[in-house]
């Protein structure tokens, strides 16, 4: 087994990407994800890869599109306002079916907001601001180890589905340090292997095949509709195959929390605090945010009195929680914003309020 190392989240994510065979990175500085950009600038060349510091996030996502359309394994990362600038690119990547992995390390918004952590980009990640019918596959790990283990899988899913995959963490996971076991390196694909593995890629025809065209433009409405229906089949398949969710203590629960990412960890401590007071709380931790694990909510027993969505936002995931609950339970929000992390006592207090227990 590989050795445990103490690493900052951002650096561990970058190293995990390299070990997953990623050799191309395009980025623009923005806090709190700069360690990823810096790490890639130092390390990629050592592995025969390339790094470009782009002039903007708009350029970065388009460089990434070019690199991935040319058959490269590409990682891109940014934080909230930067991810906002990339939305047009995400729509293009989905419509042209170009695989790559996006690492979103979110901070508090709106506007410039703050560099402190936030989870107010749930809509941005799962609904997106690009045009048209498209979806990113979005995964939200809650520890550095989980994120690192997810990286190679994210590249595989992107490649299998030919669709971008987003790993959505917040500044807490990006900036904190934890011991982590790094995955074994996967060799990178290069040269002729690229055209064998990705026959759709722009590698030059070499006079041996018809030219490859990567496009999203269809002038005939029927052709475009057929294209979108094709894409939708892929998304329907993803809804069956890519749902990932962890649950704890639902059976005995009086109250059920729903939380993702670093907030799920803080919520776990709130569960312990409530247990000390004799209140049983359960936890649903969606790992895939798109597709969202709606069906898991059917496992919540009827005896549960309240469901609480815990988020560092004014309530975004709560919409999906309500869909999952199908009106069976009252759903409320427990959250802090502005870059402030919610604390276990605050979450426990919100639970007691929802249960009508005097604090």
């Amino acid at each position, binding site marked *: 087994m590989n050795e445990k190392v103490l690493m900052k989240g951002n650096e561990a994510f970058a190293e995990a990407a390299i070990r997953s065979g990623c050799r191309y990175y395009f980025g623009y500085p923005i*806090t709190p994800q700069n360690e990823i950009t810096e790490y890639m600038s130092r390390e990629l060349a050592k592995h025969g890869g390339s790094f470009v510091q782009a002039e903007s996030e708009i350029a970065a996502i388009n460089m990434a599109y070019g690199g991935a359309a040319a058959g490269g394994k590409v990682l891109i990362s940014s934080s909230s306002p930067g991810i906002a600038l990339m939305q047009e690119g995400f729509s293009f990547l989905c419509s042209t079916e170009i695989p790559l992995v996006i690492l979103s390390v979110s901070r508090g918004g709106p506007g410039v907001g703050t560099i402190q952590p936030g989870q107010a980009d749930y809509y941005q990640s799962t609904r997106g601001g690009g045009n048209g019918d498209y979806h990113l596959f979005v995964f939200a790990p809650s520890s550095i180890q989980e994120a690192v283990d997810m990286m190679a899988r994210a590249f595989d899913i992107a490649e299998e589905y030919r669709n971008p995959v987003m790993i959505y963490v917040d500044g807490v996971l990006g*900036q904190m340090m*934890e*011991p982590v076991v790094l995955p074994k390196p996967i060799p990178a694909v290069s040269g002729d292997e690229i055209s064998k593995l990705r026959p759709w890629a722009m590698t030059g025809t070499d006079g041996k095949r018809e030219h490859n065209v990567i496009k999203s433009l269809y002038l005939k409405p029927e052709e475009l509709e057929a294209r979108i229906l094709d894409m939708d089949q892929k998304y329907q398949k993803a809804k069956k195959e890519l749902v990932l969710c962890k649950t704890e203590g639902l059976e005995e629960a009086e109250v059920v929390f729903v939380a993702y990412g670093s907030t799920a960890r*803080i919520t776990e*401590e709130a569960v312990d605090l409530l247990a000390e007071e004799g209140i049983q709380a359960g936890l649903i931790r969606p790992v895939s945010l798109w597709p969202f694990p709606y069906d898991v909510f059917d496992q919540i027993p009827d005896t549960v009195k309240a469901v609480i969505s815990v988020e560092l936002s004014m309530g975004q995931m709560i919409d999906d929680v309500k869909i999952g609950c199908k009106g069976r339970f009252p759903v409320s929000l427990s959250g802090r914003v502005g870059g402030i*992390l919610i*604390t276990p006592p605050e979450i426990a207090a919100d639970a007691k309020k929802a249960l009508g227990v005097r604090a």
Partner: protein
Amino acid sequence: MATHKLIIAGFGGQGVMLIGQMIAYAGMLEGKEVTWMPAYGPEMRGGTANCTVVISDRKISSPIVTEATAVVAMNLPSLHKFEKLVKPGGLLFINSSLIHEDADRDDVEVCRIDANEIAVRLQNDKVSNMVILGAVVSKTGVVKMGSIEKVMDKLFTGNKVKTLPLNKKALTAWEA
């Protein structure tokens, strides 16, 4: 072992992030679960800097600390901000070189360490953080001093190797 939850705070450049990382690293070498989390600010130098370190035998869920087993205040704003978070019976380390006020708390054990003065006596003001680190490790027992020395051996390499004896000496200087 109980779970240790530390808050280490000062101004940027005092090396508070580093000593937090060293404790986390030492904990990992001892096979414990650890987390280190910075409160990162937009100011790079001279602003407030603080980190939280959690060390436990059990899986750590929350990396944030609302009740600290120990707080280290390297400057006055840090004392004002974090003193209230020490849990009753916990430890409050005060860098008395820079903090001349007394603590408000009487339900915690207060350790005043003249860190900068002691560091100057060791001929290098920069090791004031190591002086405090030595005190924190000894008084809390969060990790073994030997583990901290191992971490130093791993961190201070290359050009920094010549600073190793001074840094190790600083670890016990608070007792004198």
